């Protein structure tokens, strides 16, 4: 297991280096550049040169890259010229809010999807199964911004049950203390991921229930509840664990659209803003963070896999 972890961490580092190189190059291929972005479109060439020199932007690209990586290794993601703030501090305020938003949606969707999927599998091809299948296909095929808008129309505009906008405070506490305003964004994200989780859960539960050892468990005289939750569930959750691990980067990416719809001050919303305002250091920082989460999510999925399934022994 240790050897496996060492190997996988090694691979992850290589992946991250690749991500950073590609992102770094792409960013420098984009027109404009930080100097113009900061000094304005009508800045004199001399001013731009001075700015570039002061910020090390006149050095060769590979040197700039290594300087960036050097800072990165020290935990410094650079500085957003636009916001005149370090990228670290921007992310430090935004990321926890996104984690709360997407994380609670993730947990909520699992809490709903697992039992519903199991129940669908047990009562396969029954009325409930067909209904739940239709609902999940409907949700699955619906873009999240559309779903968000529909929910706003229904619950905020027509019935005034919930605010149309997410809480606007900068601190985490302002987010947590306003659950009513959090309701619609969380539900939007929940419904979208519920749709795919419940499909996976249903099919892996059906597969597990068809196994011979389920018959053995029944022959022992165990009750349906014990068979489902002690015997079947652990086996059926193995593929779900992978799915959840892989959705770790969605902590940022899932929010890109939904946070914009609800004007939620999180990392996803910040990502969009950074892209449209040419705030390259911030953009790069978020991309690297997404890469990091992807790699960590994969690793966690593999570890969970080994924990759930004793047959899996990584070498």
């Amino acid at each position, binding site marked *: 297991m240790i*050897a*496996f972890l*060492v*190997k996988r961490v*090694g691979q992850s580092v290589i992946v991250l280096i690749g991500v950073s190189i590609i992102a770094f190059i792409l960013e420098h291929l984009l027109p404009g550049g930080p100097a113009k972005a900061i000094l304005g479109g009508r800045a004199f060439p001399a001013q731009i040169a001075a700015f570039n020199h002061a910020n090390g932007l006149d050095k060769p690209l590979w040197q700039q890259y290594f300087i960036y990586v050097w800072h990165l290794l020290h935990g410094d993601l650079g500085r957003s010229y636009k916001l005149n703030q370090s990228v670290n501090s921007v992310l430090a305020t935004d990321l926890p809010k996104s984690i709360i938003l997407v994380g609670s949606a993730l947990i909520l969707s699992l809490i709903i999807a697992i039992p519903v999927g199991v129940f669908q599998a047990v009562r396969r091809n029954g009325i409930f199964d067909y209904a739940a299948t239709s609902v999940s296909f409907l949700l699955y095929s619906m873009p999240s911004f559309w779903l968000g808008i529909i929910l706003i129309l229904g619950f905020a505009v027509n019935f005034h049950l919930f605010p149309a906008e997410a809480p606007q405070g900068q601190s985490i506490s302002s987010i947590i203390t306003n659950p009513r305003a959090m309701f619609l964004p969380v539900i939007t994200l929940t419904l979208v991921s519920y749709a795919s989780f419940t499909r996976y859960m249903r099919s892996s539960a059906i597969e597990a229930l068809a*196994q*011979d*050892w389920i*018959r*053995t*468990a*029944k*022959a*022992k*005289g*165990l*009750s349906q509840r*014990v068979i489902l939750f*002690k*015997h079947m569930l*652990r*086996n059926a959750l193995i593929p779900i664990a992978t799915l959840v691990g892989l959705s770790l980067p969605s902590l940022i990416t899932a929010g890109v659209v939904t946070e914009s719809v609800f004007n939620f001050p999180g990392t996803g919303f910040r990502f969009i803003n950074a892209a449209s305002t040419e705030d390259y250091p911030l953009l790069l920082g978020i991309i690297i963070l997404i890469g990091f989460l992807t790699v960590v999510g994969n690793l966690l999925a593999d570890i969970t896999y080994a924990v*759930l*399934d*004793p*047959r899996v022994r990584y*070498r």
Partner: protein
Amino acid sequence: MPLLEIDNLYTNIRLKKGEVKAVGGVSISVNAGETVGLVGESGCGKTMTGMSIMRLLPAAGYIASGKVLLDGRDLVALSDDEMRSVRGNDIGMIFQDPMTSLNPCLTIGSQIAEAVALHKRVNKAKAMERAIEVLNLVGMPKPQERINDYPHQLSGGLRQRVMIAMALSCEPKLLIADEPTTALDVTIQAQILELLDSLKEQLGMAMLLITHDMGVIAGRADRVVVMYAGKVVEQAPTEKIFASTNHPYTEALLASIPKMDGSVARLYSIPGIPPDLSNPPTGCRFAERCRLATDQCRTTEPALLSKEQDHSFACFHPVGIEAKHVKVAVKEEAAEIARIEHSERKPLMVLDHVSKEFEITKGAILQRKAGTLKAVSDLSLTIYDGETIGIVGESGCGKSTTGSMMVALEKPTGGKILFDGDDLFGHKPKELRSIRSNLQLMFQDPYASLDPRMRVGTIIREPLDINKIGTPQEREKKVISLLSEVGLSSRAVERYPHEFSGGQRQRIGLARALALNPKLIVADEPVSALDVSIRSQVLNLMKDLQRSHGLTYVVISHDLSVVRFLADRIGVMYLGKLVEIGTGYDIYENPAHPYTAALLSAVPEPEPEREKTKVRKVIKGELPSAINPPSGCRFRTRCERATDLCAQEEPPMASFGTLHQAACHFPLISKVEIRTGASAN
């Protein structure tokens, strides 16, 4: 009052259209302490009967009518909760495949303990103690240490012991064993059957033994119930059913099993296939395939009547004791052997000190060599033109690897294989391809070895297409003639494999193998996936084709009676080594190697008297790993006769007759000097 009384049980399975009448009015009783064998071919309803007792039918199945009385209590009428307290408590059940019947994510200890905790209402620690106790009872070595193992850490035989421990943990009154040993090797099968017998004695429980294997029944059951197409056709005490068979189906079933003594030259085979139970025929369900059937049989259903108090059967034209048994051709063994010994023998394939090793690697980034799996070690064998060589051995002995090397699918890591005097692997890839057409393989699983999306005609024609033999018209003609040779109609060309039964598919596989007029066919477990009555059809066909095509066969099988039936000479393999080779008579009647003798005594034969009196030399323990095989003689770890010499020195092949050789320091019979000095292997 019997312990279990099944009274006129009907069980149906719903389909999209209609219903399968899986069990059609079955009445069986089992007394306390008695073993009742329930035999029949697949689809005869024996498993569904067992599942009906436990009320563990598949989702679409239901008990339509009838009673299942356990100690006078009707299980069919119980509520689900009441039934749960019967399962695992009053009735224990063992299933066929120990590989898939245990939950892979839970330790064996917790899987046994949970049944105890449930039914005996004891706490976890007490239940765990009981788990250790029963694991000890079923002969699990060091149960204390094994209790936290997961199923995948155990071998098949040990897993089946865990299954048994689980079923017995609450001391049930009745044990239902559904094909308990079908997935196991013969030596392990013997261990498990022996264990079940002694546990039954110790615990005084009754057993319903469901199996397709007449040999298993013969040695273990007090009474036998024969089922065909959802109905009981005959029941009697074991000795009676074998000695004075009354129902033509029972008779045919017994006659289609190859005998271990090699006395049968041609097997009886029941024509046709069992009826479709979604639309069962009126009248006797066996009538279509019965050699004695009359119009009465086709219109009226015969009732199960008692001839004597303990012997009943459902037939209008019972096979009498005088007009006994279908005629089977008897093999003149002495003449056979003389023919083999004196015939002009031309070697077709020579295996010269052939070895096959697989490297096992370990390590995260650098793939270090961790060991070598010695699948086949230093095997020498000469296959003569026109003969049939049988290779027997347990799983993992290297018999299939040997077969793959013979058809050039695996390259040996040591030694040479000569085919028609040429080194098989000394050719360029292109030349090898043309040689390959002489070497064909017949596969075990007729379901997996035919492409489901190809028509049968295309499947058989493909080898001809690939090798560009003949014009398209000639190929089509060849396909039709091959089909008729294997006994299929030309209409099969347009159909897909799934439209055929297992036996018919195996015929298609045989036709495909024959397409290129091969010289040698390696048949790897050719009939092990087939039912007894179908098996005999395929075995007879293989014999006929050998004669008409001048084929040489290598038959690889774990089933010793099949090999005895087909083969002229038989090689016995153990852990990658050829330990003995000789004629059928040499091997079966006069074995020299202790492993051969033990293997033979482990095979259950359909002869109740022989089985019940047989002194069993059950081989202890399990097959050692081929990664680090024992030094010297590889069998020594399980051999009664082994001494220090066996560990130090590997025994060389020695002669015990003209064609008989074995590798043992302490053989069971004395060695013979062969004057000619020619190697007989």
